[in-house]
Every structure is written in C-alpha cells, then in structure tokens.
C-alpha cells in the first residue's frame, strides 16, 4: 500500500492524542512496548493460526520474532518485566503501530499496518467494576474523538461454563463441552455425537487391554501397555512417555463407560447458544434457562446483571447494547467478557473497538499464574473513517 498523505497522518496523530488524553487523565500510564516481539508468546497463546496473520521471521541469530500483531501481549510482557508479583494492580494505555498479514489482500478497512490505541487493567479484584470501567472509558474516548452513532455488543465466554454447571454435568463432560464451545464449526456435530453416546475415540487398541487398565494401579497399567507394544513389535520412540500414553488410554477407558449426554443438557446448551438480542432482555432469557434447570445456580446471572447495572451507572445507554451468547467464540485469548463497538457505516466485520477479559494470557506470557486482566483496543483508522462518515 502506498504511503498515506500527510493530511491523513496528521488527522490520525491528532485523534491518537485525543484518545490518549482521555486515558491518561483517567489514571492510565502511557507505555510504549517494543514493536519487535518474540514470536513464542504469541504462538503459544494464539496458536499456529497466528502465522497466517502475522509477520513472523527468523533473525540472523535464529531467534523467531514477529512484528507485533497487537499491543495487548506486549503490554503484558512489559508489566511482567516490571513487577515480580504479576498480580500487582496496574493500568496502562498505549498508541502505536500493529501489523497483520491480510490473506485476501490489504484494503483500507483491513490494512497490513495500522495503529491501535488502547487500555489494559491488571490485578483488579472487583471484576465487573473493572470491566465496566474499561468499556465506559474506551467509549468516552471514542466519543471525545468525535464518534456519535455506535452500538455495543457484549458476549461472555465464562457464562457458558456456568450454564454447564447448571446442567449438572460431570467434570469430564464439562471439560469436553467447554473445549468444543470454542470451536463453533464443529460444535453442533460434537453436541450431536455426545448425545448419541459415540465417544470421541475409536482406536485399534483391543478392548481387553483397555479394560485391564486401572487409574489406581498406574504401574501395572503401564506394564500392560508395554507388554502390548512388545507383542506387536512396536518400538517406543519419541519424547512422549509410556506413562503419558497409559494415562490417556485410562481416560479413554473411563469415558467409554460414561453415559451419553442427557437430552435435557443438550437442549439447555442449544437454547443458551441461541440467545441473542437487546442486553436488557437477554438477562431474562438466561434467567429462564437457569430457573428451569435441575440444579439452580444464580451466580452466572448475578454476574450478568451486575455488569449491566454497572454499565448503566457509568452512563452507557443500554438501548445501544446487545448481548450474543455466541459472540467471542473465535476470538483468540479471551476468557470472560468480550465486547466490540460497531458503527453502522463500517458494518459488522469492521468493529471500531474490541476488548474483553483475558485472565489466562499473563500465564502464557510467563507469569506462571492467571492474573485478572481486562482491556480494550481502538482500531484508529476505522475510527477516523467512521467519524468522517464514509466507508474507509
């Protein structure tokens, strides 16, 4: 893409200053993480799919680096470098370039090189309060920059987990469904096969071997697996241990004996996933599900209601807010609340702001533990286009 005009450059600079002044006045410390980042952390968190969208390269020393695809992970690393205790409360803001490969070719709404301005909060104990603060702060910043017509879309990746608790599932079913939820394309199929009782694994391992494995006798189980490999003249190669293989086989044997997912649980999940609409009424729909369920648990609903109330208190017009249970399933590293600010003229594929809660990210960045973390980033080129009232 050609270099931008000076006029456009200056308009983006001025806009970034406006956003940053809102953030710094609210007590967010301005930071400037490095553009070159180790690829490791990103690949670990986002996975190999990252390579499809990121400029990953090897430097002359053989280290794998990338041009940062966002500023959230770099800000986490900066926080970890500063604080021995990763849970130390902190608030940061930034404005800088980020880079993404555009497989369909770059265009104005999907540039390869764009500027992100954003805020991140770490270590907050009051979770919903921190979330409401991030959402309302970033909205007040884009309004200050001149944005008038916007809508806010919410999702909550943690809520699904709570719904599974309500459904009264065993831990292994819960884990399987939690994993499946994050893979929307395969989810319907998985749900169907779970209900039909077809287990996830169909192996060539004889039933007799599977049945002989016992969790409470790891040594004997490993010996049985070793004997089977010996008999089949299969050599044990590679880094994966006999213990790990045995452990997994025991898990398979256990899940084989498990009852299929109940009809009621499947219905509950399908109804939850279908919830989408104004944020005010979505709460009532969730309440209906929770109350109709065998073992009632109000915690998930309380979180939802408290968050909505806090947003209203912070001055967010709830008429502009929608909730979708499905929203956020394909977003890289979020673990709880997810949100985006949309503008009619740019369409649903080009949100002006995205953000959410990502408690697990700090662990992946090297903290060793999960740390409460929530943040938001403004796509500044889109914001400018939206304010100018034209498609970019």
């Amino acid at each position, binding site marked *: 893409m050609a270099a931008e005009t000076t006029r456009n450059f200056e308009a983006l600079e001025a806009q970034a200053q406006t956003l940053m002044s809102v953030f710094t006045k609210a007590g967010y410390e301005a930071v400037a993480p490095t553009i070159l980042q180790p690829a490791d952390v990103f*690949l*670990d968190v986002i*996975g*190999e*799919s990252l*390579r*499809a969208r990121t400029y990953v390269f090897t430097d002359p020393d053989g280290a794998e680096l990338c041009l940062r695809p966002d500023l959230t992970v770099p800000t986490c690393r900066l926080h970890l470098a500063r604080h021995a205790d990763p849970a130390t409360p902190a608030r940061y803001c930034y404005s800088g370039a980020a880079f993404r490969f555009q*497989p369909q070719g770059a265009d104005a709404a999907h540039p390869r090189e764009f500027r992100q301005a954003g805020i991140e909060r770490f270590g907050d104990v009051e979770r919903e309060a921190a979330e409401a603060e991030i959402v309302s702060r970033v909205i007040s910043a884009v309004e200050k920059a001149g944005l008038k017509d916007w809508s806010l879309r919410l999702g909550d990746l943690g809520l699904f987990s709570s719904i599974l608790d309500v459904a009264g599932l065993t831990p292994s079913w819960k884990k399987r469904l939690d*994993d499946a939820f994050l*893979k929307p*394309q*395969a989810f319907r199929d998985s749900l169907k096969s779970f209900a039909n009782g077809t287990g*996830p*694994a*169909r*192996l*060539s*391992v004889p039933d007799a071997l599977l049945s002989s494995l016992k969790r409470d006798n790891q040594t004997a189980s490993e010996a049985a*697996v070793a004997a*089977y*490999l010996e008999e089949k003249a*299969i*050599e*044990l*190669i*590679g*880094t*994966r*241990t006999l213990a*790990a*293989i045995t*452990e*997994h*086989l025991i*898990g*398979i044997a256990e899940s084989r004996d498990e009852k299929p997912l109940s009809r009621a649980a499947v219905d509950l999940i399908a109804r939850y996933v279908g919830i989408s609409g104004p944020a005010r009424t979505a709460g009532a729909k969730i309440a209906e599900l929770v109350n109709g369920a065998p073992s009632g648990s109000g915690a998930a609903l309380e979180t939802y209601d408290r968050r909505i109330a806090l947003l209203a208190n912070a001055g967010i017009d709830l008429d502009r807010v929608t909730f979708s249970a499905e929203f956020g399933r394909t977003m890289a590293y979020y673990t709880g609340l997810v949100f985006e600010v949309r503008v009619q003229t740019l369409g649903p594929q080009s949100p002006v702001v995205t953000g959410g809660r990502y408690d697990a990210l700090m662990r992946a960045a090297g903290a060793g533990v999960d740390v409460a973390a929530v943040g938001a980033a403004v796509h500044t080129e889109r914001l400018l286009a939206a304010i100018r009232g034209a498609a970019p």
Partner: protein
Amino acid sequence: MSRLTLAIPSKGRLMEQTTDMFARAGLVVRKVGHARGYRGEIEGLPDVDVAYVSSSEISDALKAGSIHLGITGEDLIRENISDAETRIGFLQKLGFGFADVVVAVPDCWIDVSTVADLEDIAMPFRRLHGRWPRVATKYMNLTRRFFASKGFGDYRIVESAGATEGAPAAGTAELIVDITTTGETLRANGLRILDDGVMLKSQANLFASNIAAWTPELRSLSNRIAESLGAFPSQTADGK
C-alpha cells in the same frame, strides 16, 4: 507472435518422466546449445521456449507470472501459493510424481489414531513438557490450513529442511507432516499415518500462471500442449 515459456523440472525422476511423457504425446523436447544448459525447445512448436528450472522455483515463477506454463507437483503449488485457485490454472494431471502429504505419529502412540486424538493429548503433553507438541515439516502452510480445518491449534511447527521422518526418534519433534509414496520410509522410522491424516494426494500437473502475459494465440498453443498430454496418460505411473 509472442512466445510461450514452459518450465520443466531440471533434474531427477521428475525431469525424466516429464521428457518421456512429452515424447509419448508427440512433443519431442530437446536441449538447446550445451547439454548441461538450461534452455530447450519442442520440435515442431517454434514459438515455445522451454526452461529447465528446479521444481520449487517453478511454483514461484508460476506465482509471479514470469512463465506461462510449468510442470511441478501439486504439493508445492498448494504450499507456496496461498491463493492458488485464482492465480494458477490446473490444466492437466500427468499421472506421475505421486506423493501424499500426510500427518504421521510414532506408531507407539496407540492412544492416537485421528487428529481429534491429537487434540486430547496436547494439553497433558504441555503440562508435562511445558510446550505444545511439535510438528516437523517443510509444508508449513499446508499443515496450518489442514489442522485449522480440523479445529486443531495446540501444536507448534518446527521447520524441517530434510530427513523429516527422523525427527520424532531424534526428539526434535513429536510428529511430522511429510510426503510419502508407499509409506515404507515412515514405517522404517516407526511412524504411522493418522486415519484422517492424508492432507493432499499430490501428483505432477501441467500448471498455467493466470497472471502471466497471455494472448489468444498463446492460449491456443497452451491448450494444444495440454490436450496432447491429456490424450497420452502416463505409462510409468509410479505407485497408485
């Protein structure tokens, strides 16, 4: 009339099989000038320039549009060109150079037979070893696309320059993605193909670059070559 550039593999079995097949189709390819040179011509088609180029460079040249036609493996085209469907014309399968691109795991992983099973073992592996399972391959793009289509993301690619089959036993990767024709090399290295682990059944093709400079005359010349090759399927099919 402008000239048509056709690139042919410059060495190995792929070159021999290409030359044989062209001859059977009545297209006699000859080197021009020095026998070790890299330019050639086709008898009776004076408007065709033949260039002898390595297989991987043929896919790059097709991608860039610097040649009109090229003969190479589908695996290289799919790996090196992310928008192959629009940039490249798949003119004719040639019936040789067969190779399957497959996911293979150590045979001793008796608890793993599908990609879904890989997903089950990834997290426990990470807990024990502090990293995701590594996949050794030179097909980074094919691997990424294939696993993404299966919803599997908990792995890391280790780029492999050669002898990929040896990586699991050497401890430099847990599993591999590589090409195989008979599976013999995989078996010899204690590896087994996953039940749903065949990503691509590749063979040599006559490819056209859609972004090269084409004229109606060059199109009809290209069609003539493709039709001649299509009428004489390979008799030296190696394997399946």
